[in-house]
């Protein structure tokens, strides 16, 4: 398998992200800035606007490439404009090229495309949110790191080989460690960065161990079967080797467990969630939003691809509540069902007593990881149709989750900019201080709580359907009960906003671009909730890929 010239357009979004990262860095470094406040603001805005424009353009290019909005018909006339679109779409998920991964390592199918779109959109909204912020030191670095991490996430979404997976995860994580500790003079931020780094390093170690075990299995199997080749780290190849060997061995199961644990850190699944409340609380708020949304989207897509392509033999069944005996543990869906159970319970209960808004939302985000896992658990269904519903519900949930979390953290960020605190008490009387912001906040919080007709409701509804179809009825019931529990802490946030009188009636201003970002997210939350068909028709494309 060779890298061909035709493969270049297939990774065009990634190439463009890399170019953009270098541009943002260069434009900042090669310019001399005066040491005044006005100059610092100017410097910050120069980098922010370049990053936002670039990400916006890449988003548009990726959208054209995907063909979800407009697909060039085959009999379209040949001219300059159509040629651009045609060449772009030839690298897109609908072209024949997309059926095989580049060098067996990077798939460019619909799953990757959707992951890219969500991740780039999340980065775009995050950058938009920071445009009007107080200027930070070295904004060029700040935005370069965000874009670099976005690039890593895109690679994670498409990665279909173990080493690629590891590189992509590290490319995502290392910039995020730096970003979490970006406020060097702030004790909490440095602590967050440090903790995130230590936990991340450990999870990478676990992940690598899992990879080496899996590779060890694959290599042994290849030797016994007499086949050679340097493709033993590819997901597809490992699956073939397992299928040829017949029974999976303990080695493979062990490898899979370590892989799940390693990625479990990234998606904050209990019991691997310990770092996230501290990191979410300490990191700069837009970075928290970015970590909570984009990196989870990429990790979930990676987890899905890894588990379904590499370990279909070990799928198992989700109707086991607790594996009492070793023999009842049947595969990764049982494990994920158990993890989802723990995550739902711990995430929702631990959120109840929190007094810091970001920390509370960190636990809420842990709880949402539990709901997301239910979409993966649905893979244990016997009917292909039900499995497809599982991935469709997972992706819908990821999209809904991304926009509502970006929104809710965004509102906190606006308040934080003004009050320099993110305790729940600073939200007190927000309705009196800025009614528009309070309404936006209410929309996001209600969506998180799963109140119809917002997208959070349909996401839960669909994921419950999928899990129910897969035979995890007990998990659905747990999910429903914890949804009710979660209402309590979500309503507590709203109570602060609407009931508790503020210390001061001074209005909280919402700068223009922050407001734009928030309104965009809110519109998405409402529109996706009312017209889920818009996005489900796109997600439908994925099913063909996942069904392999």
């Amino acid at each position, binding site marked *: 398998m060779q890298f061909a010239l035709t493969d270049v357009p297939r990774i065009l979004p990634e190439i463009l992200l890399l170019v953009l990262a270098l541009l943002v860095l260069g434009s900042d470094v090669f310019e001399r800035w005066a040491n005044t406040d006005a100059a610092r603001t100017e410097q910050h805005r120069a980098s922010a606007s370049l990053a936002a424009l670039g990400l916006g353009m890449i988003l548009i290019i990726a959208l054209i490439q995907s063909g979800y909005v407009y697909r060039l018909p085959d009999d379209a006339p040949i001219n300059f404009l159509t040629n651009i679109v045609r060449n772009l779409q030839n690298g897109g998920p609908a072209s024949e090229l997309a059926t095989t991964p580049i060098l067996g390592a990077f798939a460019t199918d619909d799953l990757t495309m959707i992951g890219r779109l969500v991740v780039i959109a999340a980065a775009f909204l995050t950058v938009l949110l920071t445009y009007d912020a107080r200027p930070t030191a070295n904004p060029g670095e700040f935005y370069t790191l965000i874009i670099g991490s976005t690039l890593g996430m895109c690679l994670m979404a498409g990665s279909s080989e173990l080493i690629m997976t590891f590189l992509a995860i590290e490319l995502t994580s290392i910039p995020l460690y730096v970003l979490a500790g970006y406020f060097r003079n702030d004790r909490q931020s440095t602590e967050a960065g440090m903790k995130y780094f230590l936990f991340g390093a450990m999870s990478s170690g676990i992940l690598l161990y899992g990879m080496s075990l899996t590779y060890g299995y694959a290599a042994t199997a290849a030797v016994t079967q007499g086949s050679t080749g340097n493709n033993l780290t590819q997901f597809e190849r490992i699956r073939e080797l397992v299928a040829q060997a017949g029974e999976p061995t303990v080695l493979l199961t062990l490898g899979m467990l370590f892989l799940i644990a390693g990625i479990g850190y990234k998606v904050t699944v209990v019991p691997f969630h310990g770092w996230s409340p501290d990191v979410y609380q300490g990191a700069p708020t837009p970075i928290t939003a970015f970590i909570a949304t984009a990196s989870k989207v990429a990790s979930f897509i990676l987890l899905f691809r890894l588990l379904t392509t590499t370990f279909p033999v070990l799928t198992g069944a989700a109707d086991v509540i607790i594996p009492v005996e070793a023999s009842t543990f049947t595969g990764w869906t049982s494990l994920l069902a158990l993890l989802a159970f723990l995550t739902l319970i711990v995430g929702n209960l631990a959120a109840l007593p929190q007094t810091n808004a970001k920390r509370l939302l960190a636990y809420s985000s842990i709880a949402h990881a539990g709901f997301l896992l239910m979409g993966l658990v649905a893979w244990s269904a016997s009917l292909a149709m039900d499995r497809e519903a599982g991935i469709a519900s997972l992706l819908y949930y990821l999209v809904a989750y991304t926009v509502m979390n970006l929104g809710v953290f965004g509102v906190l960020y606006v308040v934080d900019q003004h009050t320099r605190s993110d305790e729940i008490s600073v939200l007190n009387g927000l309705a009196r201080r800025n009614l528009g912001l309070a309404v936006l906040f209410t929309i996001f919080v209600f969506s998180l709580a799963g109140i119809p007709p917002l997208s959070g*409701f349909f996401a839960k509804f*669909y994921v*419950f359907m999928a899990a129910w179809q897969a035979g995890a009825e007990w998990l659905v019931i747990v999910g429903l009960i914890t949804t*009710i529990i979660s*209402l309590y802490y979500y309503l507590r946030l709203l109570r602060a906003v*609407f*009931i508790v009188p503020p210390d001061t009636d001074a209005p909280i201003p919402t700068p223009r671009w922050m407001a734009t970002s928030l309104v965009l997210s809110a519109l998405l939350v409402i529109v996706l909730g009312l*017209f*889920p*068909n818009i996005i489900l028709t796109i997600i439908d494309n994925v099913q063909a890929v996942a069904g392999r």
Partner: protein
Amino acid sequence: MPAYLIASPDGIPWLTLLLLSPLVGLLLIGLAGLLRLDDRIVKQGVTIWMLVPLIIAGLVTVGFRPALAAEGQSVVQFVEKLPWIDALRVDYFLGVDGISLPLVLLTVVMAPIAALASFRVTERVKAHYALLLLLEWAMLGYFIALDFFFFFIFWEFSLVPAFFLILLWGRSDAESAEASGDRDPDTPAPASDPGDRRRSAALTFFIYTMAGSLGLLLLFQFLYLATRAAGFPTFDLIALGRLGQGLGVDGLDTPLRDILFNYANQLGITGVLGGGPLLYSSIAFWAIFIAFAIKLAVWPFHTWLPAAYSEAPTAGSILLAAVMSKMGAYGMLRLLLPLVPDAAQYFAPVIGALALVGIVAGAFGALAHTGGDIKRLIGYTSINHMGYVALAVAAVAAAGAGVPDVSLQDSRASAINGAVLQMVAHGLSTGALFLLAGLLYQRTRTYHLGAFGGLRTVAPVFANVMGVAVFANLGLPGMAGFVGEFFIFRGAWATLPLFTLLATIGLVVTALALLLMYRRVFLGPLNERLAHTPDMHPTEFWTALPLLVLLVLLGIFPALIMGLTNTTALQVVQVFMQAFT
């Protein structure tokens, strides 16, 4: 479309327009906010705008052909059906029949009354009126949506505006303490108001209803999968109702109980739980019943109600009591009876007993408050009155002692007719009572029944208007409340004679409680503190008058509502003409 669904005769999507009209009102409020218009204009503008849904609903009623029935059910009219979510076969499906249309009319009548009742709101006026419009939207949507997905969305969403109305404009703690007699009205109220009481009322209301509807959500997901296993995946309430009644849809003739049982069998649940189809219908029955019983405040699910009704602002109380509690009863008529008739028949005595306890306990609860909070008293009479509706539901489903014959069909149908009329009448009369209680508070700054006395001498018009509302509420012949209760008793007598007999205790005690309330406010020696209470203003009089006129009109000529309902009622009860065992 099948024969039992017909679209709007002139092709105009009237129900969508009806549903959009409150949302357009919302946009108008936003526009008023941009133009910085005066709050007074917002109040008047929204009230006038609320006539638009009223007019549309009126047009729908004129175009509605009440006598149509086809293929074993009354014809659902003004149907609009578009695919919405392909992956789950969810349709945008609206329509009205004889049960939903009267409730749509009730909603569009009560919404402007609530808007008029909020003219005294001074804080955050635009938000208050926006929430009223949102609430009207959600309630209308609930009554006309015929796909479970939308039905459930409106059901849950209606909580949101109601929650905020109670939370933000509800009574202050000082007012509540004063109303229950814990605080002397003459001492100045404390400056700060933590709002603990209204907050707990709002939260209880929200979480209670939400928790109750979980079973409903789970059940419909299960039903979807069960019907999918039978080859016809659907969330369509009409289709599910037809399957439940064994009428068949699109060539699928298996009754819903068998579909449910087969699916449970296929999943292996029957191996664990055992039992026959009735067990699974029963589980479904309780999932539906609990969700709606909470909203309808059937004993013992009523505990949220007195606090929610009494802590809400006047407009909130009016809409909660007049319309939102009917959402529960409507759900029972729309889902419970058609979907699981066998379990409904089996458990009819249980519902009847719960209804009976509610009727009697509600009445005595009201009696216990004749020296306390006037809004709580009205709340308890609501529990009593909604008990009659629950009794009617039980009576429709009950097997009855005799051989099923035509007279029993008549009785059951009159129970449904009576229940629908009772809902409308209770909505109008309780709405009027809460409105008047609010007006009384504006004059006297008290809700405590011990603090009134002799107001008739200074406010004769007020006393007369309140008198009419009280008599309508307690069911004086000639008023709508009487006709509703009469038909319910007439219908229930045939199948549940004992319960019906005992329920009459509730009639007497509620009447006593309401009359005692009236006496404490208007009769007796004049309380000196209230000697300068102004009488009713013309605007207030004209706000209350439509309700009173409607109450009398429906009392004298109930066919206005019953004519709409009767065909549907006769068709709904068909399925109970057989004995399921």
